[in-house]
């Protein structure tokens, strides 16, 4: 199939990535060649083949739902680039909300 700049822009938005017009054109060109190559798969008759997410047939694994120590709160929060009063600080999610 043919990739267009409009498709590239839509996929960039889905990916949480901003692209300039120039980057968009370059990405359409690069991805277009790869997606064109993907069409090789159309040669292969896969009718009736069950898609396999995991190839080693395995059974579901159960374990006891035991309470165990997990992360230390301060250590965890220390990794956040922006912190406020012992919390991770994030930009406003809704208009009119709390401070960032």
């Amino acid at each position, binding site marked *: 199939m043919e990739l267009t700049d409009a498709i590239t822009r839509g996929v960039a938005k889905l*990916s*949480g990535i901003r692209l300039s017009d120039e980057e968009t054109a370059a990405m359409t060109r690069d991805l277009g*060649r790869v997606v064109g190559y993907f069409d090789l*798969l159309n040669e292969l008759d*896969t009718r009736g083949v069950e898609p396999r997410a995991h190839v080693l047939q395995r059974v579901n694994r159960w374990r006891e739902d035991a309470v165990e120590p997990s992360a230390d709160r301060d250590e965890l929060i220390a990794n956040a680039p*922006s912190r406020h009063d012992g919390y991770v600080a994030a930009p406003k999610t809704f208009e009119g909300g709390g401070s960032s």
Partner: protein
Amino acid sequence: MSGLSGGFMGYSALELGALVQSRKAGVEELARAALEAAASTGDSVNAFITLCEDYAMGQARLVQSRIDSGDIPSRLAGVPAAVKDNISTRGIPTTCASRILDGYTPMFDANAVERLRGAGGIMIGKLNMDEFAMGSTTETSAYGPTRNPLDLSRCPGGSSGGAAAAVAARAVPFALGSDTGGSIRQPASFCGVTGHKPTYGAVSRWGLIAYGSSLDQIGPIARDARDCAAVMSILAGEDKRDGTSAAFEFDDSTVINADADALKGLRAGIPDEAFDAGLDQSIRARVLEAADLLEDLGAKVERFAFPTLRYAVPAYYIIASAEAASNLSRYDGIRYGRGAAEPGLTLEEAIARARSAGFGREVKRRLMLGNFALSAGYYDAYYNKALQVKAMLRGAFDEAFERFDIILTPTAPTTAMKLGESLNDPLAMYLGDVYTVPVNLAGLPAASLPCGFAEPDADGGAGMPIGMQFIGRAFGDETVLRAAAAYQSVTDWHRRGYDAAI
């Protein structure tokens, strides 16, 4: 024992372990030697992102005192090692060679790192790689490219290029890499060393920063198959924190003791499609010579048709990119890593800004490719189709393994490329994975081992190493490494590449 031309780091991992146990070398002495060797390759090879001297020397003291009190936890106790920088290390930055993880320090060790420490291994540093393991040259790293120790104008392969280069440059006798589509085997091939991609599930993925979760495996890169086996016996085993890890134990003794007799009666299959017209002539010649040698030593080598093989690369890039798009959606620049600096942004803007500045071009390509393949309207044509191809590929391998014990292919269709040659043509780079990605899609174990050198190039550069790949049945890691060790017991390609390193 090998010569001392590279100092202590000229020895194999098993040799160093023996020196430690016989008190001919001290653990701290070895750690210091490795740190010095690693530092001296810093500017030229750039194999390391982080050297952790304090951690290494502290571990060395602990392990030496354990050994002094008669506690020898493994054959590799006291031996220095390095770890790819997508494997989490408590208190030591883990970057995935990406700007987006600037400032991030894990608060836990990966299972593989816990096991390495438990076995008395001494981690001296974290290794360079393609950003988020996406690349085949280690040029997409935010920390600059790693160079091939055998020819500094060439790449070491990728994405575990730092791991292969550090071993080839004798900074460490072994390293832990990761392999999603060839990232252990292809750089091992390019640097003239030996690498093993374990069966999916043989090694816990806990603490390995995810790229393609149905494909990712941690495994060893070392000087030879025996060292790889010794590392596998440390890494393999079930871990309740990785639901896909298997109750699999690896016994290294049959590999370590293997001689040429191990090849008697081995049934090796060679897919016709792996040697078709596009393959570099010197690679074809060296790999087929190796097959002849296997036959001379008593293996039964046979060609067979494997028509599904050519569909593996497109299926792999669809599946790996789709899983990456999902796995990497967690990077928002808010909870850890480098955030968007400007105040006043909305949440969505801040996340998009952090991701746009934090991810490099190849990561963006794959995230977008993955989101494309997963999006409404394209899902059946691409993602579902790729999962069907994956099932067919596994079926074709199952059929082949009814007749063969191993399958033999080149590891890569080329030798190490010049730096800068590949980055602008992603499709050409992806096609270089033709021999390695089928193995990940089918979840199988495979090793890459040196089998010769290419002709010297026109401008007088040395001929680069050529690697061949042995593929085995699921959980047949021991068969693969035993065959590799047997081949290495009668050949010296794995030492010649090593001796040629700068």
